[in-house]
């Protein structure tokens, strides 16, 4: 029953993915700016985000099939709960699909808030002490942030109406009137936006909810959280950033992004070095990569923005892969305590192999896609002439990479230690077809984009970059 539902879900998401692909090719490559009754709006940027969302949610749906059934087998959840999971899963996905398509900033805000509310259930899904705690923190902190963001939204509207009399919250009109707005208000408003949505996007020091939520959520959902959710609120920041840059000079906006990005990188680095929990490790690496993207936006050269957007997708894919593997490992070992896990490559050969690939993908070894985007980011840092940023990036990336390799070296190799509360005879180390597909699907993107970037992607990303540069 549950399994069939899962397969159905996967098929549906596959169709969705095809649609998203079509949409992406049409809008992105064609660089269209669709607008529907002033409420919906789509351009290359949103198309790109839609495609990312579709990709990750499809992979997650694929992986969920076996994951949820295994959870059932291990008696971690009841049948009813499994069905509930699929409901929430789709609501969550729907909310995230909604985000990039909205023109009205107020409703954009609502959509993002909705993602929080829905995913909070998925975070607290297992209803254990830890998961509930994580869910509560997630809920409260994100709500605080999002409320501040709402204040920012209102200030934007205030600025707009007091400057032009237009009584609307549409991004397009805001952008059109950007030149006339009062810079001071916009600056202040953007600070609220940045802190608010930044909290949701996991920028340090507002990132504190992130490792808890990611580590406690159901693994496929963790993948969606760090793969897409963070990017959704980052997307909101970017939208506002365009206006701000247009209104009161790029430097204000880019400086802020740069500072927050570097701060996130540093803090992530610190916490990765001494990390005891597998999924928290991955969560912190998400913070690191978000920081990278922010730095890329902060550098604000075409190359950097291109790299940042590319990195957005690459990170989503690689991180999803890693979370899937982490989920498998957690099921097999009954824990995600790094100290208790070793010898994955022996215990779960396929997962181990994929995980190995994923680690190197995450660190940005060639020929994985992240190598390319990190290359763009770092090189643009050097080309823009801020050597110190470049040097800092290189140093932090090297240290983080080293730490990750160290941790995963211990996890992947050595004598298999299958310890843990679920009775192991009920867990089957054999990979189901769904997992194979999910791994293959993600690895295809990881390696494919590492080797070459198709022209369509190139065009659409360039279009998105020009949007971000307000051209």
């Amino acid at each position, binding site marked *: 029953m549950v399994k069939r539902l899962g397969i159905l879900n996967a098929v549906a998401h596959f169709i969705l993915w095809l649609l998203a692909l079509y949409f992406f090719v049409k809008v992105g490559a064609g660089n269209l700016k669709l607008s529907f009754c002033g409420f919906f709006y789509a351009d290359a940027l949103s198309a790109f985000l839609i495609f990312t969302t579709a990709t990750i949610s499809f992979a997650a749906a694929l992986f969920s099939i076996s994951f949820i059934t295994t959870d059932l087998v291990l008696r971690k959840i009841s049948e009813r709960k499994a069905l509930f999971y699929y409901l929430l899963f789709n609501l969550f996905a729907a909310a995230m699909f909604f985000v990039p398509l909205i023109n009205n900033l107020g409703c954009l805000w609502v959509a993002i808030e909705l993602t929080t509310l829905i995913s909070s259930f998925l975070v607290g899904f297992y209803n254990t002490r830890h998961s509930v705690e994580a869910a509560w923190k997630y809920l409260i*902190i994100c709500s605080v942030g999002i409320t501040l963001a709402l204040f920012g939204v209102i200030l934007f509207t205030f600025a707009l109406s007091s400057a032009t009399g237009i009584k609307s919250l549409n991004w397009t009109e805001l952008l059109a009137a950007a030149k006339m707005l009062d810079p001071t208000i916009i600056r*202040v408003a953007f600070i609220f936006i940045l802190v608010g949505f930044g909290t949701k996007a996991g920028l340090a020091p507002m990132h504190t909810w992130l490792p808890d939520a990611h580590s406690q959520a159901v693994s496929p959902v963790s993948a969606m959280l760090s793969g897409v959710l963070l990017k959704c609120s980052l997307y909101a920041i970017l939208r506002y950033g365009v206006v701000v840059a247009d209104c009161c000079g790029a430097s204000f906006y880019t400086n802020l992004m740069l500072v927050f990005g570097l701060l996130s990188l540093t803090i992530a680095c610190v916490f990765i070095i*001494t990390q005891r929990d597998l999924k928290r490790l991955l969560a912190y690496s998400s913070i690191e990569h978000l920081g990278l993207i922010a730095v890329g936006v902060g550098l604000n050269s075409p190359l950097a923005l291109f790299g940042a957007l590319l990195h957005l997708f690459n990170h989503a894919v690689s991180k999803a892969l890693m979370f899937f593997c982490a989920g498998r490992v957690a099921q097999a070992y009954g824990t995600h305590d790094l100290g208790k896990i070793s010898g994955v490559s022996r215990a779960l050969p396929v997962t181990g192999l994929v995980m190995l690939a994923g680690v190197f993908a995450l660190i940005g070894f060639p020929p994985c896609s992240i190598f390319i985007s990190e290359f763009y980011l770092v090189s643009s840092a*050097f080309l823009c002439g801020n050597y110190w940023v470049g040097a800092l990036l290189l140093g932090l*990336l*090297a240290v983080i990479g080293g730490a990750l390799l160290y941790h995963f070296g211990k996890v992947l190799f050595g004598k298999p230690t299958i310890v843990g509360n679920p009775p192991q005879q009920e867990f089957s180390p054999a990979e189901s077809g769904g997992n194979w597909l999910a791994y293959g699907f993600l690895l295809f993107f990881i390696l494919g984009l590492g080797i070459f970037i198709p022209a369509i992607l190139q065009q659409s990303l360039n279009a998105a970059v020009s949007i971000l540069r307000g051209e």
Partner: protein
Amino acid sequence: MNLLINFKSLVVLDPLGLFFLAVIFLVSLPALIYSLGYFKGKFTRTKLLATQLITLAFVASMLLLVIVGNALVFLIIWELMTLLSYLLVLTDDENEAAISAASTYIVMTHCGTAFLTAALFLIYRQAGSFDLPAMAAACQTMSPLLRNWLFVFFLVGFGTKAGIVPLHIWLPSAHPQAPSHISSLMSGVMIKTALYGLIRFVFMVLGISSLWWGMTVLFLAVISCLVGVIYALMESDLKKLLAYCSVENMGVILMGIGLSMIFTCLGLASLAALALIAGLYHLINHAIFKGLLFFCAGSVQKGTGTLDMEKLGGLIKKMPWTAAFFLVGAMGISALPPLNGFVSEWLTLQAFFSGVLKVPGLLALGLVLGAVALALTSGLAAACFVKAFGITFLALPRGQGAEQAKEAPASMLFAMFLLAAGVVGLGLLAVPVFNLLAGVAQPICGTSLQVADLFSLSLQPNSRFAIAPLFILLVLGGGLLSAAAAYYVFGRGKFRLGRTWDCGYYKIDSRNEYTATAFSKPFRISFSFFLLPFRKTERRKDSFYHVSSFVHETHTTKIFKKYLYDKALDSLYRGTKVFKRIQAGSIHLYIAYVLVTLVVLLLLVRIF
């Protein structure tokens, strides 16, 4: 926004690249032959297949590395090479030591690569392209300060891979963990690619602009030589010993390179060429005899199941061929005439001495000291390999494994034979090899040193510095003949087997033999200021009164690891532990962060 790769200039085949291609082929082909026998009945089929494929990919990556003409592609292949070798070190993936060694290895090289990347990007900013010629052109217009930085970055980046002291600590732990032919590939070839990078980027792209570069390299080389050989002397694990010895030999090679940098900077082109040739000569030599020695170590391991010299001995009777090949390799690496190590060390000494005559004042003194260091190193290396061969292969077996040792299969022996032939050949054919290397050095140093004489390797036509390994061999042969003549003419040549003289002790067995630790004791004591040896003595009592046995251990302190790396890591770790307190789980604190961030930004809004 393509990857800025110009496909026309993607591949360059200049003499330097070809030379390294040759080196790689010379070692990797025998290695592949060797692996056939070595892996027999070791792994499951899938694992075997995987290992072989990775090995092939590894070799391929090294081959590509030395022929690409685009710095970015170079970097990519460099990373790939690291990755593959990391996997190969992990072949024995259940062994804790292997895992930690592999982690150390990849973490260090990863950090080293960051420096390379920085350097390449800095050049790229000026050049606007990753093609080596363009980069070289751009480097000429850079400010001296920037060039110095670039040099430092290159030195650190490549030095980490080359295992220069103090960046060497990954090497002796990682190389022995891999299967023996992989060890020989890593020790023999992979770390040489770092030198390739050094020559390619510092000589040909960056261009040597200040004297202190060469001096630094020379200094590091001297340090590496001594440290490497001293640690090698202390080791009683055969493969670890060889690995440390690699550090030493990298030092010897770097001596040549550093000298060449100094001479280039002083405008002494021909000397620079000589020094570079010496370096390259030792490079190929080391590739070959280190490969050979690791092969032999591998067959010892396969035959006896252990690499601990204290448990070996007497193998020369059980595995005569391996012993013979090891002897050849050991003689080569101890620079004994007329084998190849002798030629290259002699050349390096020549470079030193001819340099002394040309360079100004104090630098000359420095070079003399360098020569002293080299001589000392070769002396110690000889001691080291007397120990390695004597303890492992001679006298009586010290353990179970050594008693039931079996000779290696034919494929392994054949591979060893090929390299042993290389050791002899490179020694005897000094002049042709020298001329080839002169061809390699010519585009780098601008002058070509060709030796006209067919046998005698004399630098100036009628100089008093000359060697002719072939003649030396003849003379030695003559000496042997005369010795034989004396032996059989004067002596009656009759002999019988008897017991080893035992000073009246009633029986002598393997427990009376000198052990590896005992052999290295004088060195341990006289270098104690550096090795900081310490001992543990423990009495095993079976009753309160009676001590049944003593356990007596001697260890040396690895000062670089203990006082440099461990300290640094420790402080880093502690620092992060302190920092982690900011996230102690209190939700109120977390909300406070948001609030404070907001307020601070609001107050600072005018600044941004």
